[in-house]
C-alpha cells in the first residue's frame, strides 16, 4: 500500500500531465497533423529514393519549391478570406509567358520586366477581386472563368509569338543568377520564397490588414457589421494572390526559359491540395503561411517522388489521391474534435496528501471548537451588493467592497445604510488594500492589479509579469489576481490564484490541486512586475506581517499559511506558519493585538481529502461526468480564525446556524468591529469585538497616524 502511494506520488510529481492540455490549447498545434504527414512523406520517399537527401537533389527541389510555394501562398491568401482561386495555374502561365516575352522580344531590362509581370498578373487578380469582392460573384465560378480565359489568352499569344521567342535568347547575369544561381548553394528562388513568406507571415499575424483578412474569413457578416470594408479586403486578397502567381511565373521563366501550352496545367489543383493539406480551411478564417508551406512541401515531395520511383503512369495520381483523402480526413476529424479533446484532458489532477485536519469538535475543545459567535452579526447592504469578496475601511470609516458587476461600492458611516458606486472597474474586484496616499489598490479577476486614486480615477497598475522560462502557454498575463498587500517601501505583493483557469472556473482548480498559482511583486519604483514565488497551490490571501519584514500568504487547497520574507536576513525564504487547517484559508488581515485574522472559506471533507490522494479517480470524473456533478470542495460554510506570528490559532468564530454569514472569504478589523465579506454572499456582516482596541484601524496600522 505504502509503495503504491509512493509510486503514485512520484508519477504525478515527475510526469507533467497538464502540459498535454496546454499544448492542445496552443494555436500552432493545428499544424501538428500536417507536419506529421510531412515527416512521414519525407521519411517514406527518403528511404525509397536513393540520393534523396543529396545536395543536388535538394537544390533542385528547393528551386522548384520556390515557385510552387509562392503559388500555394497565393491560394492560401484567398482561402483565408473565404474564397478560392482556380486561376492560379493560368495566371502562373501568363506570368511565365509575359516574362519571357518582355525579356526576349521586348528587350526590357530584368529590373523593369519583373515588376511589370507582377503587375500584369496582379491585374488578373484585381479582376477576380473586383468581380468577387465588389460584385459579390461566386469565387469558384468566377475564377473558373478567369482560369479558362487567361489560359486561352496564353494559348493564343503562344501561337503568335512562340516561334519568335524560341529563336531569341536573353542574356543577363542577373537573370542567370535568379534562374540558376543562388547564395551559397541555396537557390535564389528559395531565398525569394523565404523572404516573401516571412513578410507574408508578419503581415498576416501582426498587421491590421492581416487581422482584418482573418476576421473576414472567420465571419464575413460580423466583419461587415463591425464596419470593416469587406469588399475592399476581399478584392485586395485576390490581387495579392495574382501578384504572387506572377512572381512564381517569373521564377519559373528564369529556371526553364521556355513557354509551352502545358505550363501551369493543373497547378490550381496541386496548389489547392497543398493549401488544404497544410490545414488551411476551405471557407476561410483558418490559415497561415506556415500551413501553406507545409502543404507545398508535402505535395512537391509526393509528386516528384512518385515520378522518381518510376511507378507506372497511374500510380502517381493514385498515391496522391489516397494521401490527400487520408490527410484531409484526419484534419477534418482533428478540427472537429480538438475542442472536445481539450475540454476532456485539460483538467489534470495531481496527487496531494493533506495532513489530518485539526479537530473542530466541541467536546475536545481547542481553538477551532464550533461556536455560534457569528450568530449576532449585523447585516449591511443586504441584497444590495453581490459577491463582496473583500471589504476594507478607510480612515474616515467608509466601508468599501467589490461586487460581481465590476463596481467598487462604498457604504457611508456611521450606520452603513446609504451607499454609492465608488468606481466602476469592469472585472470582478477581489482583494483590496490602501497605500500610503490613500489610493485603493484592487486585484481584479481576469484583469490584473488596478488602482483607484482619491479622485476616483481608475488606472491599471499591472496586468502582466515575466513569462516563465519553460512554460508551454504564455503565463505572463494575469488570469486571476486574488489578494494583495503593500510593503512599507511601496512594493505590492499579490497572489495569482491559478494560471490555468479563468475567474468563473476557479473552483475547478481545486480538482487539480496542482501548484498553479504564484505570488507576484510589483515595484512602483521601477514599474516592473516579477514573479516572486511560483507553483503554489491556489495562493489566496496575502498580508504584510506587523513588522513589515515578511508577507503571510494562504494556500487554499493546501490548507496552510506560509510566510515569505521580503526584508531582513532571511529575505526570499519561505517558512510554514499554519498547517493542517480544517478548511480552506482565504484572505488574511491584521488584527489590533498584533495577531492576524484569517477567513476559512470552506471546510474540508473526508471524501475530497481521499479523492485528492486519487488523481486517477479525479481525472476520470472530470472526463466522464458533467462539471456540475463533480466533487468540489465544500464552500458553503466556513469560519474566521485568529492566529499569531508563531502559528498558534487563538480563536475561531462560527455561524453554526448558517443563517447570517456562513461563507466568509474576507474580514477586516476596524475600530472594535470585524467586517465580513463573502464571495457568494449578497451582504456584508459586522460584529463587535469585545477585547479589541476600539481606536485601531488598518490604515493607521499600516501607514501610521494621519498627518
Amino acid at each position, binding site marked *: 500500500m505504502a509503495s503504491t502511494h509512493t509510486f503514485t506520488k512520484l508519477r504525478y510529481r515527475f510526469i507533467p500531465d497538464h502540459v498535454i492540455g496546454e499544448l492542445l490549447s496552443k494555436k500552432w498545434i493545428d499544424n501538428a497533423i500536417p507536419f506529421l504527414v510531412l515527416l512521414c512523406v519525407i521519411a517514406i520517399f527518403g528511404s525509397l529514393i536513393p540520393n534523396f537527401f543529396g545536395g543536388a537533389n535538394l537544390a533542385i527541389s528547393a528551386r522548384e519549391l520556390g515557385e510552387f510555394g509562392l503559388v500555394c501562398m497565393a491560394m492560401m491568401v484567398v482561402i483565408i478570406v473565404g474564397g478560392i482561386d482556380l486561376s492560379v495555374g493560368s495566371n502562373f502561365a501568363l506570368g511565365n509567358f509575359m516574362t519571357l516575352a518582355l525579356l526576349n522580344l521586348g528587350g526590357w531590362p530584368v529590373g523593369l520586366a519583373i515588376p511589370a509581370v507582377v503587375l500584369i498578373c496582379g491585374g488578373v487578380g484585381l479582376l477576380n477581386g473586383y468581380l468577387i469582392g465588389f460584385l*459579390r460573384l461566386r469565387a469558384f465560378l468566377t475564377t*473558373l472563368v478567369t482560369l479558362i480565359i487567361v489560359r486561352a489568352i496564353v494559348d493564343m499569344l503562344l501561337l503568335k509569338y512562340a516561334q519568335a521567342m524560341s529563336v531569341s535568347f536573353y542574356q543577363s547575369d542577373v537573370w542567370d543568377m535568379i534562374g540558376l544561381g543562388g547564395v551559397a548553394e541555396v537557390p535564389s528562388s528559395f531565398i525569394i520564397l523565404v523572404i516573401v513568406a516571412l513578410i507574408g507571415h508578419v503581415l498576416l499575424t501582426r498587421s491590421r490588414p492581416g487581422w482584418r483578412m482573418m476576421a473576414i474569413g472567420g465571419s464575413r457578416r460580423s466583419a*461587415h457589421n463591425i464596419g470593416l470594408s469587406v469588399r475592399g479586403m476581399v478584392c485586395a486578397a485576390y490581387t495579392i494572390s495574382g501578384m504572387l502567381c506572377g512572381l512564381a511565373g517569373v521564377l519559373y521563366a528564369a529556371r526553364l526559359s521556355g513557354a509551352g501550352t502545358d505550363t501551369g496545367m*493543373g497547378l490550381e489543383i496541386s496548389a489547392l491540395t497543398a493549401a488544404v493539406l497544410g490545414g488551411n480551411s476551405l471557407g476561410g478564417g483558418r490559415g497561415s503561411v506556415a500551413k501553406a508551406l507545409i502543404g507545398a512541401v508535402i505535395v512537391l515531395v509526393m509528386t516528384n517522388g512518385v515520378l522518381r520511383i518510376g511507378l507506372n503512369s*497511374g500510380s502517381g495520381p493514385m498515391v496522391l489521391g489516397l494521401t*490527400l483523402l487520408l490527410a484531409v480526413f484526419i484534419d477534418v476529424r482533428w478540427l472537429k474534435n480538438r475542442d472536445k479533446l481539450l475540454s476532456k484532458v485539460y483538467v489534470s489532477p495531481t496527487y496531494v496528501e493533506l495532513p489530518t485536519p485539526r479537530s473542530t469538535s466541541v467536546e475536545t475543545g481547542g481553538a477551532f471548537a464550533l461556536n455560534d459567535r457569528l450568530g449576532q452579526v449585523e447585516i449591511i447592504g443586504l441584497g444590495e451588493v453581490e459577491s463582496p469578496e473583500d471589504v476594507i475601511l478607510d480612515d474616515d470609516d467608509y466601508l468599501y467592497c467589490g461586487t460581481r458587476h465590476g463596481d467598487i461600492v462604498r457604504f457611508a458611516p456611521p450606520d452603513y445604510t446609504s451607499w454609492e458606486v465608488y468606481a466602476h472597474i469592469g472585472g470582478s474586484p477581489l482583494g483590496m488594500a490602501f497605500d500610503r496616499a490613500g489610493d485603493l489598490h484592487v486585484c481584479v479577476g481576469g484583469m490584473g492589479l488596478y488602482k483607484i486614486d482619491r479622485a476616483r480615477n481608475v488606472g491599471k497598475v499591472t496586468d502582466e509579469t515575466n513569462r516563465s522560462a519553460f512554460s508551454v502557454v504564455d503565463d505572463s498575463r494575469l488570469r486571476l489576481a486574488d489578494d494583495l498587500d503593500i510593503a512599507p517601501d511601496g512594493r505590492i505583493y499579490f497572489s495569482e490564484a491559478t494560471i490555468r483557469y479563468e475567474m468563473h472556473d476557479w473552483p475547478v482548480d481545486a480538482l487539480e490541486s496542482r501548484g498553479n498559482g504564484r505570488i507576484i511583486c510589483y515595484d512602483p519604483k521601477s514599474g516592473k512586475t516579477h514573479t516572486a514565488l511560483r507553483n503554489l497551490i491556489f495562493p489566496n490571501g496575502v498580508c504584510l506581517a506587523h513588522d513589515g519584514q515578511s508577507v503571510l500568504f494562504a494556500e487554499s487547497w493546501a490548507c496552510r499559511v506560509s510566510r515569505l520574507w521580503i526584508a531582513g536576513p532571511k529575505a526570499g525564504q519561505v517558512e510554514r506558519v499554519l498547517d493542517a487547517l480544517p478548511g480552506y484559508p482565504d484572505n488574511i488581515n491584521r488584527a489590533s493585538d498584533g495577531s492576524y485574522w484569517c477567513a476559512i472559506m470552506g471546510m474540508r471533507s473526508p471524501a475530497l481529502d481521499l479523492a485528492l490522494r486519487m488523481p486517477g479517480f479525479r481525472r476520470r470524473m472530470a472526463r466522464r461526468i458533467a462539471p456540475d456533478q463533480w466533487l468540489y470542495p465544500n464552500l458553503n460554510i466556513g469560519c474566521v480564525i485568529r492566529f499569531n506570528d508563531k502559528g498558534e490559532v487563538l480563536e475561531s468564530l462560527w455561524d453554526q446556524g448558517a443563517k447570517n454569514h456562513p461563507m466568509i472569504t474576507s474580514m477586516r478589523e476596524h475600530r472594535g468591529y470585524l467586517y465580513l465579506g463573502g464571495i457568494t454572499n449578497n451582504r456584508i456582516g459586522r460584529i463587535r469585538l469585545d477585547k479589541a482596541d476600539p481606536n485601531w484601524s488598518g490604515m493607521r496600522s499600516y501607514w501610521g497616524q494621519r498627518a
Partner: protein
Amino acid sequence: MKRQGDGRRMRVWTRYFNQERIVFALTVLLLILFALTLPKFLAPSNLLSLVRSVAVLGILGLGMLVVVLGRGIDLSLVATMAISVAWSLQLAASGLSVASAMGIGLLLALGMSLVTGILIAYAEIPSLFATLAMATFVYGFGRAHLITGTDVVYLPPNIGMLAGLGQGALFGIPMPIVVAAVVALIAYLFLRYTKPGRFIYAIGDNLASARIGGVPVRPILVAQYVIAGGIAFVAGLVTATSAEAMNTRVVNSNMIYDVILVVVLGGVGLSGGRGNVRNVIVGALLIGVLMNGMTIMDVQYTIQNVIKSLILLLAIVVDSILNPRDEQTGQQGDI
C-alpha cells in the same frame, strides 16, 4: 406610397429575369442571329447535330445537378465515366460477355461514387476536396491496375447492339439525344415526385434543418453521389459508342469545367436547393448553339473557350446584379 408600389413592381420585373430566363433569351437571340447570318444553320440535320454534340455534356450535367442540388459538387464525374467505361470495354475485348462486362463497369462506377459519398457524408470531408481527390485516385487506380497498355480503349468487335447507343437513331433522332432525353425525364421524375428527390432539395436548402426535420441526411448524400456515378457511366457509354473508343485522357481535359458550366449557366445555384432539370437543358442548349455556330463560322477552339466563359461570366454578373447577395444573409464559407 405610389413609389413603393413601383418599387415592388420593379422587383417583380427583375425577379422574372432570373438567370435561366436570361440564358434562354440569349440562346434564342443567338439562334435567330445564326439563323439569319449562317446558311444551313436551321437545316434539320444541323439542328440535330447541334443537340447531339451536347448530349453527353447534358447527361453529365444531370448527374452534376443531382449533386449540386444537395449543396455538393462532384469533380470526379469525368474520371469515373472514363475509367469505368474503359474498363468495361477492355473486359469485353478480353472475352467477357458484353452484358457482364458492362455490369462490372457499372458496379465500379457505383462503387467508386459510393466511396466518395461515404467520405463526404460520414467522414465529413468537404465535397469539393473529396471529389477532387477521388478523381485523382480513380484515374490513377484505373490507369495503374485496370486499364493496361494504351490511353485509348477501342470498342471491341463483339460489342454488338450496344454500339447503337452512340451511333443508332430512333425515328430519325440520334440515339445520344434519346438517351439524354430519357435520363432527363427520369431525373425530372425522381427530383420532382420521389421522396429522396424532395429530400435532396431540403438538404440543399438547409442541411441542419433538414436533419432536424427527420431527413436521413447522410444516406441521401451518399445516394446523390451514387446516382451521379451511375449517370456518369451512361454518359461514358454514349461517348464510347459514338466515338468508337474511350479516351482516358479526357480526365485531364477541361471537360469537368464544361459540365459545371452547363449546370451553372442554366441557373442552378451552387449553394444548393435551387435549380431543376430544365435549367440544365437550357444551359446545354446555349452551349450547343454557341459551339455549333462558332464551328460553322470556323472560330478557333481557344477563342470558342473564351467566348463560352465570357457568356458564363455575363450570366452570373447579370444574375448578381438582378438578385444581389446580401452581406447579412450570405452563407459563411460559401464558395
